[in-house]
């Protein structure tokens, strides 16, 4: 047998491990889809998760959306003033928010706020043998723990993204009115004429896919947490880091497809 050099062997093993992890993740996603079609439909648990993800993330989404819109308005307002084009500050911010900023920042926020909480909760259940107890009772942990979280996230996260857009517009409106003296009528006119409904749909569509990634990745890391004192912390950190990376990769892929085919 040909003896590979140490570096090549290490690289091969790393690639193989990564490929195995990607394969396992895809199988996990397939099982979520399969279990989601099975009864019973856990209505109460889905509502509980909607309340947890939606209601409890509302303030942070509104505040961040408002601040993002205001800061973006400040930045571009200064540039637009040079060309005496302050009037389009609302429209320009609206396009940036709806197509990119809102889904991306909302995705990051929810990965940190809701996704990490999902991982922490499920990994604590793993450490305390509660997931083993479910298996011992003949209940699929994916059906009981993962499917309600994924369905609730896919339902409520796009709503939160819409609220982020709305709060962002409020932020840029305030900046436009207070700092750049933009006329209210011109602001609204440019906003409505520049921001198309398709821009908003693009943003919400992105958020729909991000919500699946956030919830599924968070739950997977929770279920795979190692038993021990470090298990919960490590699982939560890894879940957030990988979710953020996956959001960025998916954002690029969706945007690329939109630019290449859909537009």
């Amino acid at each position: 047998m040909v003896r590979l050099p140490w570096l090549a062997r290490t690289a091969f093993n790393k690639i193989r491990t990564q490929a195995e992890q990607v394969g396992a993740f895809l199988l996990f996603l397939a099982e979520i889809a399969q279990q989601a079609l099975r009864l019973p439909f856990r209505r109460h648990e889905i509502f509980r998760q909607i309340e947890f993800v939606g209601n409890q993330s509302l303030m942070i989404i509104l505040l961040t959306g408002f601040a993002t819109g205001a800061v973006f308005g400040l930045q571009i307002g200064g540039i637009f003033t040079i060309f005496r084009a302050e009037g389009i500050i609302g429209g320009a911010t609206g396009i940036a928010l709806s197509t990119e900023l809102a889904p991306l920042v909302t995705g990051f926020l929810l990965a940190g706020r809701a996704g990490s909480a999902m991982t922490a909760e499920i990994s604590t259940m793993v450490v305390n043998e509660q997931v083993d107890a479910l298996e011992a009772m003949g209940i699929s942990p994916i059906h009981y723990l993962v499917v309600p979280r994924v369905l609730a996230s896919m339902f409520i996260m796009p709503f939160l993204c819409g609220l982020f857009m709305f709060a962002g517009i409020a932020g840029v409106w305030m900046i436009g009115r207070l700092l750049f003296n933009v006329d209210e009528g011109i602001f609204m006119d440019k906003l409505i004429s520049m921001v198309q409904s398709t821009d908003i749909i693009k943003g919400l569509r992105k958020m729909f896919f991000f919500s699946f990634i956030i919830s599924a990745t968070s739950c997977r890391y929770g279920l795979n947490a190692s038993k021990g004192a470090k298990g919960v912390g490590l699982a939560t950190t890894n879940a957030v880091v990988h979710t953020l990376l996956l959001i960025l990769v998916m954002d690029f892929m969706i945007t690329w497809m939109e630019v290449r085919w859909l537009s």
Partner: protein
Amino acid sequence: MDGSPVAVMIYFQGVSKSFGRHRVLDELDLHIERGKITFIIGKSGEGKSVTIKHIMGLLKPDKGRIIVDGSDIAEFSRDEARSYRRHFGMLFQHAALFDSMTVLDNILFPLREHTMMSTKDMLVRADEVMEQTGVRQLRGQFPGELSTGEKKRVGLARALVAKPSVLLYDEPTTGMDPLISEMIDQLIVEVSQKETGITSIVISHDLKAAMATSDQIVFLYKGKAALSGPPDDFRQSQDPVIRQFFAGKVEGPMEFL
């Protein structure tokens, strides 16, 4: 022990299981009798938990057959294994109660998941098992508010509520004071007597409890059943490994990995 097919509930036939290079079960042969209390004992790392996971269909053997009530469970699909596990009740080492539910909801959980019983009937059944395990007064409390012994009793009530045919106990008295250990041992015997036909399998290091309460002891050593029989067989065995375990001595032929 008559060893007839009717009396034997669970039968391991040449079961081997390895994790990486470490062979945990090595051509293990054992049988567990229906309606009896069987203790599986052995030092740490000898495969007691792995044996129980095989019985529950949570692990599949690399080699060999596991016959439970006439069916080879190694051939079950994942869904078949899940529905097979509904016939089991399990008391976990740390009870594994659901933190977000009250004691009553924890106990009702298996009934809500697996039966079509009316709420009234479920509450009647929950009352029966709470009475049996002495936790009725705790029904409104959350697991975080309970002592270790109370959690164990609630865990036992949850394991019993769906009338399982096999009840598994994973180190039920580990880390508990002698009084609570005694109480749990008594509960194991009471449950076995009251719930007619229930097969109890206990993983334990507690030799005193094994001698006092079991009908059958299985001693695992090097992946095999070094001894399987009534407590008297264990007491009278001249096998040096068993004598060493029984005496609790470090010096002797038993290998420590």
